[in-house]
């Protein structure tokens, strides 16, 4: 039951900076997800909160106490590890009750809490088994159970689902979300999987090279990415990124993608781009769709392109073609067979186009 606060947190390994000046407040009961490519410092941040990694600079608060100098055991946080980290010589029951035994909780109370955890996670039949006799999903559950019985101030999850197969991962994801609703505790969750991040988080932090790129709700980071990195990291398939020149014809601005195609710029955006020569355009694949009915109006732009490749997925078909120098993915929501080389007409809603500065890569 506590707020976790990071103040100017820095972590260096020798000269290598893993986390740079991180500031963050995680209010009580929030489900916060740290996401980013490997090596971005997300796990390091989590391990610093747990106390498993020393802090090079800055302060970490759990509740209103600075915990910098505190051992992991005195921080009252639970952690779920990527490899489950179960104690192989103990049964499921003993694994669950271990932390309580160490804390010298009464035997009756231990039994009660273990029974509760076992019920929440559906481990009734496995109580007497050793970890080696469990499947991956069951081990994962025990690892979570071990965290639950502690009733900690905060839960820390370090890529807990990455060792499970796809189906189990989806299932466990739902269970973790339910668990959070039931337990009402602060959760800090590290993952490299943006789908996990989107589905679980109250708030997402996208990290890269030790820096926070963006903090926001899943919808925010998806619909208003602050830079090209976030735009391409969140969402699947990644946002299409196109380099274009800005040209002005008869007082109207256009984005020149190649010699044939010029995308008009909405008048409402003229102020943003009027002093620039180049621009980066970002369009999500669901915003470039094959044209179904003709549409009129200034916010739509149509063009014809030859299809290089199509990947039918059932509910949709992903179409690949070149726009300028870049390969573009488009989604066809009413799938039909598409031949390679077939020419299709596409439409783009210009309101859905993201614009980024060509040098700083920041959103305009």
């Amino acid at each position, binding site marked *: 039951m506590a707020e976790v606060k990071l103040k100017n947190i820095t972590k260096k390994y020798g000269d290598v900076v893993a986390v740079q000046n991180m500031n963050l407040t995680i209010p009580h009961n929030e489900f916060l997800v740290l996401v980013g490519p490997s090596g971005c410092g997300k796990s390091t941040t989590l391990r610093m909160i747990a106390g498993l990694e020393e802090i090079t600079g800055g302060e970490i608060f759990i509740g209103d106490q600075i915990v910098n100098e505190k051992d*992991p055991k005195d921080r009252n946080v*639970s*952690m779920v*590890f*990527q490899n489950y*980290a179960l*104690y192989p*010589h103990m049964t499921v029951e003993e694994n669950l009750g271990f932390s309580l035994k*160490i804390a010298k909780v009464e035997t009756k109370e231990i039994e009660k809490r273990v029974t509760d955890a076992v019920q929440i996670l559906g481990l009734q039949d496995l109580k007497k088994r050793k970890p080696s006799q469990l499947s991956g999903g069951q081990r994962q559950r025990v690892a979570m159970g071990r965290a639950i019985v502690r009733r900690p101030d905060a839960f*820390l999850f370090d890529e807990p689902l990455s060792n499970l197969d796809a189906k189990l991962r989806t299932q466990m994801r739902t269970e973790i979300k339910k668990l959070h609703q039931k337990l009402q505790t602060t959760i800090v969750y590290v993952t490299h999987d943006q789908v996990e991040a989107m589905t679980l988080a109250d708030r997402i932090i996208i990290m890269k090279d030790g820096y926070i790129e963006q903090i926001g709700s899943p919808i925010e980071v998806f619909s208003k990415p602050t830079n090209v990195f976030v735009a391409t990291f969140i969402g699947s398939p990644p946002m299409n990124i196109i380099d274009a020149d800005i040209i002005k014809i008869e007082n109207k601005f256009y984005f020149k993608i190649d010699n044939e195609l010029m995308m008009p710029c909405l008048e409402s955006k003229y102020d943003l781009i009027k002093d620039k020569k180049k621009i980066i355009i970002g369009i999500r694949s669901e915003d470039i769709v094959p044209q179904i009915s003709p549409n009129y109006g200034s916010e739509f732009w149509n063009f014809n392109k030859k299809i290089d490749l199509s990947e039918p997925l059932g509910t949709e078909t992903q179409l690949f073609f070149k726009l300028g120098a870049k390969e573009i993915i488009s989604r066809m929501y009413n799938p039909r067979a598409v031949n390679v080389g077939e020419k299709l007409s596409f439409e783009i809603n210009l309101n859905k186009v993201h614009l980024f500065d060509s040098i700083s890569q920041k959103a305009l």
Partner: protein
Amino acid sequence: MNKKFFSSPIILILPSILAISFVIIIPLIFSFYTSFTSYKLTRPDSLFDFVGLRNYERLIDNAKFWYAFGRTILFLAIVLNLELLFGLGIALLINKITWGQRTLRTIMMFPMMFSPILVGFQWKYIFNDNIGLLNNFLYLFGYESAIPWLIDKYLAMGSIMVAEIWANTSIFAILLLAGLLGIPRDPIEAARVDGCNSWQVFKNITLPFLMPFVFIALTIRSLDVGRAYDIVHIMTGGGPAMRTELIWTMIARIGYKDANMGYANAMSYVSIILSIAFTYYFFTKLVAARRDLGQQQ
């Protein structure tokens, strides 16, 4: 010729059968046979003097043999326990070191590089009551009466143990260090987050992970210490008044000095029971420890 006998499986394992026969089975049968004869090394014809169980009857009544037998068990128990304790300590310390660990690991193994005979000689001169380093060192601190390290009936055994422990603790250390390096980091970190202090982590996580290595080391070393001969022979020669006689120094004395090979072989067969018992015990423990960790057996 019987075609089946020379079928390819037989031919393929024939070399190993031959090798094992020459190296193990034939000597084993031969020595077992001699334990039923009055075979003396100096009289080869006595090899055919079959005496039945007389050698075994003699040794059962031989109190000196049983003293040596018991002394060997005591020697094993003390040496193995202390080596385990010291070896574990060294391994834990070296495991903590982040800088210069490899160098230290090499230095740690120096005692193993010397022949046990030379170790025996060295300690013999350290423990010598007149010219020994130890007594001279004590003299510097005002302890003027020379302590008869290798002559006193109790001290002599202890002195041999010290030499043995000095020479071989590093075997424990190196095996346990290998075990420590192989322990996954996650369960230890999990235990720290779960509220364990260093001692609790060691007791509840590190030690169970280390147990298989402890028992492997104990098995190897029990066989090793059980056949201790050279160091005793050099340091005390079994003296004073046979107070440091172990099984193998006794057997060697009877077999070679007294040339009473038949009798000595009978003793060897009895003392093998000891090695088998220790090995069996530690091996059972090893299997149990590994099963406990859910490892393959």
